[in-house]
């Protein structure tokens, strides 16, 4: 045993390598193979419905996609969806975090209720909202509007993207709340008390102490949400299927339509490359921040 132990420690590099090999190899394959294929396909004529047509397409798939009004519509929808959901969840999450940080009766249970939507699978939340909440005649919102003497809104035909934004924001607001609440708990109570001694009121404390303390957590929330929100899929799939028209088609849904509904692998792959580029722009900042955090 002595021998193997000693040699095990001295060639630590080798041991490290063998312990990490499975995880690293798998992730490397997971990244390189599909990524390589996506890039390769994006330069090929490849349509599952037209087996005869194949070969190098150059940038034609990109050209086709970039001149397709659907792409720009989808990009616009993606940005609107991401932007609105981010705004709602970050602002709402911060306020809710402040609220649930207060010590009130039953706070623990109230917190648990408030973060629950995050654990609901996306297909369930989308369908519950679509049917039971937003249904134009039998939904709770319609009933509420009627009781107040207002006309009921036909959410998914009148305000399709807004409806999606509401559903997605409902799912992600608890995420922001959970993260920011955790971050808030690491706020030094002494600091707050020192500020109070210096004459700061609750609002001053929020803006000068709490918000700066949450800055990092907020940027983490923004970046992580962005990565997920850029490719929201299931919520659109089960509610509007991208419609009416292209009103709720985002980039992810467009790629899905091109790939699995039109079977145009080439164009779908070009879309995939665009999605990857978009996600990576965000990812670079997130990775950098986490890396900085690793140093501490």
């Amino acid at each position, binding site marked *: *045993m*002595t021998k193997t*132990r*000693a040699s095990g*420690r*001295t060639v630590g590099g080798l041991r490290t390598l063998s312990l990490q090999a499975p995880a690293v190899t798998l992730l490397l394959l997971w990244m390189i193979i599909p990524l390589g294929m996506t890039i390769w396909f994006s330069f090929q004529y490849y349509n599952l419905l037209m087996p005869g047509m194949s070969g190098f397409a150059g940038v034609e798939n990109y050209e086709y996609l970039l001149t397709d009004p659907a792409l720009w519509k989808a990009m616009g929808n993606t940005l609107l969806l991401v932007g609105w959901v981010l705004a709602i969840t970050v602002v709402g999450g911060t306020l809710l975090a402040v609220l649930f940080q207060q010590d009130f009766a039953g706070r623990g249970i109230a917190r648990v209720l408030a973060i629950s939507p995050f654990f609901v699978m996306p297909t369930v939340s989308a369908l519950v909202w679509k049917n039971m909440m937003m249904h134009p005649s039998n939904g709770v919102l319609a009933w509420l509007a009627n009781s107040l003497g207002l006309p009921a809104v036909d959410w998914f035909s009148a305000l399709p993207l807004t409806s999606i934004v509401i559903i997605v924001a409902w799912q992600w607001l608890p995420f922001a709340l959970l993260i920011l609440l955790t971050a808030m708990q690491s706020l030094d109570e002494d600091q707050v008390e020192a500020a109070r001694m210096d004459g700061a009121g609750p609002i001053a404390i929020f803006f000068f102490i709490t918000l700066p303390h949450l800055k990092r957590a907020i940027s983490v929330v923004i970046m992580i949400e962005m990565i997920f929100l850029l490719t929201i899929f299931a919520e659109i799939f089960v509610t509007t299927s991208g419609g009416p028209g292209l009103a709720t088609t985002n980039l992810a849904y467009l790629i899905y339509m091109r790939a699995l509904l039109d079977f145009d692998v080439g164009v779908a792959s070009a879309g995939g490359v665009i999605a990857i580029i978009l996600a990576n722009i965000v990812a670079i900042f997130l990775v950098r921040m986490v890396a900085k955090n690793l140093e501490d």
Partner: protein
Amino acid sequence: MATLQLNNITKRFGDTSVLKGIDLDVNDQEFVVFVGPSGCGKSTLMRIIAGLESATDGDIVIDAQRMNEVGPADRGLAMVFQSYALYPHMTVEGNMGFSMRLAGVPKEERRAKVLEAAKVLQLEPLLDRKPKALSGGQRQRVAIGRAIVRNPSIFLFDEPLSNLDAALRVQMRIELARLHDKLNATMIYVTHDQIEAMTMADKIVVLHDGVVEQVGSPMALYHHPANRFVAGFIGSPKMNFFNVDLLSVSPEGVYIRLPGGGECTVPADGHTLEQDATLELGVRPEHLVLDEAGALSGQIEVLERLGGQTSLYVRMGELLVTLMADGDVGYRVHETVRFSFAPERAHLFDSDGRALASLTQHPLAGLTRQDNRTPGAAEAPV
């Protein structure tokens, strides 16, 4: 029987050299303390002895056997960690018996050995508790107990008292000294606290920047520091240093001019000194005496009365001199005082910080903690 030799141990992490060639002999049953400021390499040195880290170069020899390639469990050592490193999910008994469990010792025998150690440390009533349910001092004892049951030839202690409060630290210090008596084992102890080093060591190893500055008994280090670093590090409050001018060198010592104009002869060997060498004079605060006719003078800036003693911080130009005086001195802040020292209590350091050898040997300089127990030596005045 357990002796330890370190031959030219070096340790590099990348480009930084943490240990720069350490040579050391530890005798059987000796209590050796590695002391030094943080970052001096003392903990690394201990971890290399333990086998938790490998030396870049050099040999670790335990009982005449080279141990560099031997795993930590097979060197016949036991270590008490600074954080105690108790296994939180095991009871005290489980903690103490873990090494035997790993070695496949039968349960009965394990229990007997644990009980034996527990008795030494008065841990018997705690055997079924988990570490969480113990006080700091109790955890400390369990950590020691875990080391004892391994019956090691050498005990290693890595700053074991630094997590205890002051009162408990004094008590554990006494317990450790007692334990050393009882077990007659070789012990190596790392600390940054020179008081722990002075009180417990047979031999102190002062480390600084990866180099051994001096090895010797506590009294030898106190009375005959080899250099300015050791002089400043050992002893509390810190030694005072004055820049002095060399006037002449004679067989009786070195004749110098003190700041403020006084002159005196320090009985040190100055025959290697150049004509216009720059010298530093070191005098411990407890060796400065208030003296109306003293050659040194300054204004009292701060006065700390401890009851039995009074610390005076006296401003002498750029210098703030510390002076330990009697508890009953009547001085006040901002008063000017004069003070002096006995030349044989002073130390001289050359421009490289090396001490000039003293011409008189302090009677206690050869004393170790072991000798404290022989009746004859105990009578010597301090």
